[in-house]
């Protein structure tokens, strides 16, 4: 069994297990993969200014940043992407890059740079969760880090202000949300019926935007028009994060058994196809009865595989 894992993250509010997008990604992935995490919120501790969250501790080693934490969990055999094909894995990488380039700057701006949101929502929340005297420093530290990241990555020259890039950031983010909505369509999760790491990333970035009570946000209004994304967030919250709900079908199946089941399924699909081909080919029509028998026996032969 894997060593016990402990996650340090920001606490939760507004129906969410955590208000920080990166922490949400890790929490969601842990639920999807069936990993048992002890969650230790850093609220009201001095870690609010010293630690980089999210931070995973296991067996003496420490890992930060969502991508590295997810890789670490995969190595511990908590893999929610097991059933994805190679192309779907490539798609996951591409969509995660899209989220980070287009949606994350707008999230940073909405939470930390937009004056009204910062004064009415973000600063009071983070200040109330930090011990005295840190409550004076923590929000402004995080805000200046967010602003400098925005300017360095989005502004064309070091002398550009934030106003010039605001319009572009928000139009990029709206386009990104539209693209995600098109990709999700009407299915429950992005790849079939089980959630994967892409679902964790989308949930981590979209859920705070959906649930946080902003005084005014055009991005949040845009998101509310995309019904399938809102439904996706609510589904994930209800299925995985509600108190007392049993984790659905996340039994830790042996990896070999899963692989075997996949192989047998693929073989039986191939055999069915062969069957159909043989039945529809013209020269074999007179011998149809013989073929049915032989097809039936070949199926029987494959099951003990």
């Amino acid at each position, binding site marked *: 069994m894997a060593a016990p894992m402990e996650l340090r993250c920001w606490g939760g509010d507004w129906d969410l297990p955590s208000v920080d997008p990166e922490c949400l990604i890790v929490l969601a992935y842990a639920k999807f993969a069936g990993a048992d995490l002890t969650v230790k919120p850093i609220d009201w501790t001095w870690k609010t200014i010293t630690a980089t969250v999210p931070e995973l501790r296991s067996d003496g080693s420490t890992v930060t940043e969502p991508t590295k934490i997810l890789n670490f969990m995969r190595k511990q055999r908590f893999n929610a992407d097991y059933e994805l094909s190679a192309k779907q894995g490539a*798609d996951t*990488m*591409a969509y995660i890059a*899209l989220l980070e380039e287009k949606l994350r700057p707008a999230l940073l701006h909405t939470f930390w740079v937009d004056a009204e949101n910062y004064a009415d929502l973000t600063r009071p929340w983070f200040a109330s969760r930090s011990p005295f005297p840190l409550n004076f420093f923590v929000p402004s530290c995080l805000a200046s880090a967010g602003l400098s990241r925005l300017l*360095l*990555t989005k502004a064309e020259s070091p002398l550009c202000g934030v106003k010039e890039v605001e319009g572009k950031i928000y139009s990029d983010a709206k386009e990104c949300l539209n693209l*995600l909505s098109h990709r999700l369509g009407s299915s429950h999760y992005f790849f079939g019926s089980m959630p994967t790491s892409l679902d964790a990333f989308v949930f981590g970035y979209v859920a705070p935007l959906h649930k946080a009570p902003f005084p005014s946000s055009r991005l949040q209004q845009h998101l509310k028009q995309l019904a399938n994304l809102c439904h996706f967030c609510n589904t994930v919250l209800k299925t995985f994060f509600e108190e007392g709900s049993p984790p659905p079908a996340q039994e830790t199946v042996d990896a070999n058994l899963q692989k075997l089941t996949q192989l047998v399924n693929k073989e039986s699909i191939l055999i069915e196809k062969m069957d159909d081909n043989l039945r529809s080919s013209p020269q074999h029509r007179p011998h149809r009865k013989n073929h049915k028998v032989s097809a039936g026996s070949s199926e029987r032969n494959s099951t003990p595989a």
Partner: protein
Amino acid sequence: MSLAAEAFVSQIAAAEPWPENATLYQPLNGKNHFFMLISCHVSYVPIMSQAYLKMCGLPVHLCCRANAEYMSPSGKVPFIHVGNQVVSELGPIVQFTKAKGHSLSDGLDDVQRAEMKAYMELVNNMLLTAELYIQWCDNATAAEITRPRYSSPYSWPLNYILAYQKQWEVRRKMNAIGWAGKSLEQVYEDVSQCCQALSQRLGTQPYFFNKQPTELDALVFGHLFTILTTRLTNDELGERVKSFTNLLSFCRRIEQNYFEEQDRDSQSGASSRHSKGPSLM
């Protein structure tokens, strides 16, 4: 460009068809200057834009000028001069051609368009950042190749000041996005992963979205061509990309289909020094 200006340009662009005398301007292709472009991380953009315009089937003349950067409205190369409008950078050029009615991604449905945009971001995120890192944050490459090239057109002391300023800017940006702590090996690993994702998406198809090339093909071609034809202190990056055979044949195919005709057409013009530039063959 602000959003209002972009919309205005699109409206004007939609009014007239594509003229015959459109020109693409880029800086000189002399031995020194071609490599200088790479340190401004825009060398792949001229090739990308050319590839894109050729894929649309739009005739465009190539013109190399030393002061191309100053002629451009936004300071970035390349830019195209079409009719009485000047448009710079790949993104606006794509929108401009769309407004004229030529678009490569019309045949895609919404889901495919989402995929295309996602892959374009992946390429921008990974390959572009890796290229910048290797040129400016790796001390050996920066000292031997990048700084001398970047400062070559300027005289002392401007060359020192500009080169170090650019390096400082790039390192700050790497710090902000978390790449500062990465080692060169990890960067090569990231590039390999990105190429693997692209290779898996491409599979055995001729282009990323089966039979027709799109902006994504032009973008990937631009980046991979630059990586494969640039000389650096060591060839590991080029070798890693070459290990993905379908990506290599993809680049060769685009070069053959779209750039060989230009070689044949413009044997006499001095502006076609690009044809004598690096090639994959």
